[in-house]
C-alpha cells in the first residue's frame, strides 16, 4: 500500500495535470479495501481530484462559509469552515467547558442556572441565525436546549453565549428556536406535552390533562435580549419542528405535530395510528392583536433568565414569574390545522413564502401546502371538522402538489433559490432534488448513512446561497477507522451547482449535529472582535495596570488581582492564604494583540482552568485544603518564555499568623 502511494507521488512530478487526476482516482480506489471498507463497496463516493480541488483551502486562506452545527448531546455548537469541513471552534453553550472555564468561572457560572438549579448539560438541536427581511444578518445565533427547555443566544462578533432563557410550561423544547422574518420573535414549541401548570397526576390522565405550548420569545432589535412575550396553549399533541413564514406568509409560523392520537405509552405504535397528523398554522399577528384586545391570561410560571452584561461581560441570573397566555381553543383565527400524512417531522417554507413543505416521515410522498390556498380555504371555511375547537382544513383545499416517490422516510427540505428543493430521506439514505411547481424528482444522491437534517447555506431564507448542501447523517458506521470515531457523526458536503449533485467530502462532527446553519464568512468575519480593549474593561475585579496588582483579604475571602502578559504574572509570589479561605483569582490579561490569550491553573483546583482573552478579566474560585506551597502557571503556550510563566502561592494552617502579601521580582 505504501509502495503504491510512493509510486503515485513520484509520478505526479512527471505527469501532466490530466493524468494526475486519473492517478489519484486509481490510487484511491486501489487502497480503499485495505482501509477496511465494507464489502458492499457502495460506501466509496466522490473522491475525484476535481472534488478535492473544490474543497481545498490553501494554507493561510479562509473558508468561504462558517457552518454552525448543533453539538447535539454535547450541548455545544461546532463551528466548521466550508468547503473544507475543518472544525474551527467548539463554542460552549449549554454545557460547561473546562477548556476556557465556561460554566466554571464566576463570570459565566450564572449562565447555566435554571429553576432546577445548575444544569451543566443539555441536548442542543437547532441552530438558527438571526434574519432581517428574511435574510441572514450575521448578528446572532439562536439554539435550543431540548432537555431542560432553554434557548440560547450567541453573539457572532465574539462567538460567545450571551444569553440563556428558560421556557416554562414546556416538556422539551424541540420545535425551536425559529426566527420570524425580522427576528421579531424566535418561536419554541414543546415536544412532549405535560400537565400545564405542572402537577402530580396519574400519567394515564394524559388525554384530559396534558397540553402543549407554543412560545413567542421577543428579541430586542438592538441588543438581541430575549423575553417571553406570550405562550399559546394548544392540544396535547407532540410538536416537532417549525418554520416561520416569509415574504407573502410573513406573520405566520408553521409547526408540525405528531401523536395527535394523544398516546402516553408505546408511542412508536400508538402515535402512528392516524393516517394524517397536522401542520399547525399559527397567525402570530392575530395573537398580538388578541393580547392587545385583552384576551391574554396571565398564568403562574417560574423560569430563569441569564444574560451577560455587555459592559462588564459578567453574567447575571434572574428568576422571573408569570407568563401571558392565549388559549388557542378559545380564540378563533389563531391556529388552523392542515392535515399532513403520517407523523410529519420537518416543515419548511420556500424562499417565496408560498410553499410549505411538510415531510411525513412514514409517508411515501412529500405533500406541499400552498399558503395562498390555505388563506382561501380559511375564507371559504373549507373545514374538515375540528380538533378541540381548532378548525381542521380540508387536505385538498390547501395542497399545492405532492412529490411522488421521493424516497423513504422524508424528514427535511431546504432550497437553493434556483427553483429546486432538496429533501433528506432518512430510511433510504439519500438526498432527493425536486422542482418547485412541477413537484418532479430531478436527481438523487446516496449519502452515508441515515441522513437527518440537511442544510444549504441560507437555504431556509429568502436568499439561499445554492452552492452546497450538507448531509447531516445520523449513522457513521464504516466512514472512518473502526474504533474510536463511531460517534463522530459523519457530515457530507455535496456540490449543487450543476444539474447533478456531486459528493465532495466527508467530515466528522462533534456530538450529534441535528440541524446546522451556514453563512458567508464575509458576513461574520468583518465584525469579529479580536481583542477586548483594556480601557473599556468594566469587570468589577479588573486590574488595568500592573501597578494595581494586589491581594486583599475580606474575612475568609481572598481576592487576588492578578495580571498576565508574556511571560509573567503580577504578583507571582503570594503568602498568607490559609486553609478554609476562599481564594478568588481575578485574572486580567493585559495583552492587546490578536490571539494572545493566557491560561491559568493552580495545582489541585476542583473546577477548571481559565483561558483569558486579550483585554478580558475572568475569575475562578480556589479553596485550598492543605497547607503547602502551590504552583500556578499559564496553561497556554504564549511565548518563548512560556515555561517561565509561573508563580507560587503559600497556604498556611487556618490558625497560622502569616501576613498576607504578594510580590513580583526582587
Amino acid at each position, binding site marked *: *500500500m*505504501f509502495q503504491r*502511494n510512493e509510486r*503515485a*507521488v513520484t509520478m*505526479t*512530478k512527471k505527469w501532466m*495535470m490530466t493524468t*494526475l*487526476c486519473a*492517478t*489519484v482516482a486509481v*490510487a*484511491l480506489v486501489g*487502497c*480503499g479495501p*485495505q*482501509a*477496511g471498507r465494507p464489502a458492499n463497496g457502495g460506501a466509496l463516493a466522490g*473522491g475525484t*481530484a476535481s472534488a*478535492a*480541488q473544490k474543497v*481545498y483551502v*490553501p*494554507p*493561510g486562506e479562509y473558508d468561504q462559509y462558517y457552518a454552525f452545527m448543533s453539538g447535539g448531546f454535547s450541548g455545544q455548537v461546532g463551528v466548521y469552515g466550508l468547503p473544507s469541513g475543518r472544525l474551527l471552534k467548539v463554542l460552549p453553550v449549554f454545557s460547561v467547558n473546562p477548556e476556557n472555564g465556561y460554566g466554571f468561572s464566576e463570570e459565566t457560572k450564572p449562565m447555566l442556572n435554571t429553576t432546577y438549579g445548575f444544569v451543566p448539560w443539555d441536548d442542543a438541536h437547532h441552530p438558527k441565525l438571526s434574519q432581517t427581511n428574511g435574510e441572514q444578518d450575521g448578528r446572532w445565533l439562536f439554539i435550543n436546549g431540548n432537555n431542560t427547555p432553554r434557548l440560547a443566544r450567541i453573539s457572532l462578533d465574539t462567538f460567545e453565549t450571551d444569553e440563556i432563557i428558560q421556557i416554562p410550561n414546556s416538556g422539551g423544547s424541540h420545535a425551536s428556536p425559529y426566527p420570524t422574518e425580522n427576528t421579531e420573535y424566535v418561536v419554541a414549541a414543546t415536544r412532549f406535552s405535560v400537565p400545564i401548570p405542572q402537577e402530580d397526576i396519574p400519567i394515564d390522565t394524559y388525554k384530559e390533562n396534558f397540553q402543549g405550548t407554543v412560545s413567542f420569545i421577543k428579541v430586542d432589535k438592538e441588543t438581541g435580549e430575549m423575553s417571553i412575550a406570550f405562550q399559546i396553549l394548544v392540544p396535547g399533541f407532540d410538536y416537532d419542528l417549525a418554520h416561520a413564514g416569509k415574504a407573502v406568509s410573513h406573520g405566520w409560523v408553521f409547526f408540525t405535530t405528531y401523536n395527535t392520537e394523544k398516546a402516553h405509552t408505546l408511542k412508536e405504535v400508538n402515535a402512528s395510528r392516524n393516517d394524517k397528523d397536522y401542520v399547525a398554522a399559527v397567525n402570530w399577528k392575530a395573537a398580538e392583536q388578541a393580547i392587545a384586545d385583552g384576551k391574554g391570561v396571565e398564568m403562574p410560571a417560574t423560569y430563569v433568565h441569564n444574560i451577560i452584561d455587555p459592559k462588564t461581560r459578567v453574567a447575571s441570573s434572574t428568576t422571573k414569574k408569570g407568563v401571558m397566555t392565549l388559549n388557542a381553543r378559545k380564540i378563533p383565527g389563531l391556529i388552523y390545522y392542515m392535515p399532513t400524512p403520517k407523523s410529519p417531522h420537518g416543515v419548511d417554507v420556500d424562499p417565496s413564502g408560498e410553499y410549505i413543505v411538510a415531510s411525513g416521515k412514514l409517508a411515501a410522498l412529500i405533500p406541499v401546502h400552498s399558503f395562498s390556498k390555505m388563506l382561501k380555504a380559511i375564507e371559504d371555511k373549507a373545514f374538515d371538522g375540528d380538533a378541540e375547537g381548532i378548525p381542521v382544513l380540508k387536505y385538498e383545499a390547501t395542497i399545492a402538489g405532492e412529490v411522488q416517490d421521493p424516497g423513504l422516510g422524508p424528514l427535511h427540505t431546504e432550497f437553493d433559490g434556483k427553483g429546486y428543493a432538496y429533501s433528506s430521506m432518512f430510511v433510504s439514505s439519500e438526498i432527493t432534488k425536486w422542482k418547485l411547481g412541477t413537484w418532479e424528482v430531478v436527481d438523487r444522491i446516496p449519502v452515508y448513512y441515515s441522513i437527518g437534517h440537511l442544510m444549504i447555506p441560507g437555504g431556509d431564507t429568502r436568499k439561499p446561497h445554492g452552492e452546497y448542501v450538507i448531509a447531516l447523517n445520523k449513522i457513521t458506521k464504516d466512514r*472512518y*477507522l473502526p474504533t474510536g470515531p463511531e460517534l463522530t457523526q459523519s457530515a457530507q458536503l455535496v456540490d449543487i451547482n450543476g444539474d447533478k449533485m456531486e459528493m465532495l467530502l466527508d467530515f466528522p462532527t462533534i456530538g450529534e449535529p441535528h440541524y446546522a446553519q451556514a453563512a458567508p464568512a464575509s458576513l461574520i468575519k468583518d465584525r469579529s472582535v479580536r*481583542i477586548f*480593549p*483594556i*480601557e473599556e474593561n468594566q469587570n468589577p475585579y479588573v486590574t*488595568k*495596570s*500592573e*501597578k494595581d496588582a494586589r491581594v486583599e483579604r475580606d474575612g475568609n475571602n481572598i481576592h487576588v488581582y492578578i*495580571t498576565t*502578559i*508574556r*511571560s*509573567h504574572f*503580577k504578583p507571582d509570589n503570594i503568602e498568607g492564604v490559609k486553609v478554609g479561605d476562599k481564594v478568588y483569582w481575578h485574572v486580567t490579561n*493585559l*495583552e*492587546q*494583540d490578536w*490571539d*494572545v490569550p493566557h491560561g491559568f491553573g493552580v495545582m489541585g483546583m476542583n473546577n477548571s482552568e481559565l483561558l483569558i482573552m486579550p*483585554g478580558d478579566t475572568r475569575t475562578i474560585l480556589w479553596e485550598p485544603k492543605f497547607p503547602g506551597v502551590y504552583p500556578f502557571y499559564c496553561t497556554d503556550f504564549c*511565548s*518563548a*518564555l512560556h515555561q517561565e510563566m509561573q508563580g507560587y502561592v503559600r497556604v498556611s494552617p487556618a490558625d497560622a499568623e502569616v501576613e498576607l502579601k504578594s510580590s513580583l521580582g526582587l
Partner: protein
Amino acid sequence: MKKIGILSASMVAILMVAGCGQAKKPEAAAAPAASTAAAKPAAPASGLTEWQMTHGIGPVTERVEIGPLDEELAKQGQAVFEVKCMVCHHVTDRYVGPALQDTIARRTPEYMMNMMLNPDEMLAKHPEAKKLLGEFLVPMTFQNVTKDDARAIVEYIRSVTGKDPISG
C-alpha cells in the same frame, strides 16, 4: 500551470493519506500556522530606506516636533503607558523589554512611535528591532494604541527619564 501542478501534487498526497486511512499526516498539516510576524521569513538584507533605518517602519513617515516638555501631554502618555506598557517596560531596569532610559538614549521619537504602532513589521524587517528580539525573545506586541497615544507616550518617556530622544 505550474501552480496548479504543485497544488494537485499536494492534494494527491492528502488524498492518498486520507484514502488509505494511515495515521501518517502530511508534513504541512503538522506545522503550526505562522501567527507572529517574527516567524515570517526575513526580508533580504536591509532593503530599507535610510529614513526607515533611522526612524523605523510604520505610519510615522515625517519628523515629529520635539519642543519644550509638555507636562499635560506627558500625563496623558503616562495614563496609557501604565495600562498598556508598564507590564513590559520599566524606567531604569530591563524588564520583559528594554529599560526606557536606554531606549530614549538610542532612538528617535519616530522610531519609538513606529515601534509602538507597527511592532510586527518592525520585528520582521528592521535590523535594530530584530537584534533586540534576539536578546529579549518576547516579541513586542501591538497594544492597540493610536498615533496620538504614541506621541503622548514619547512625552512621558522624556519626562520620566529626564532625557530627550536622539534626533537622528
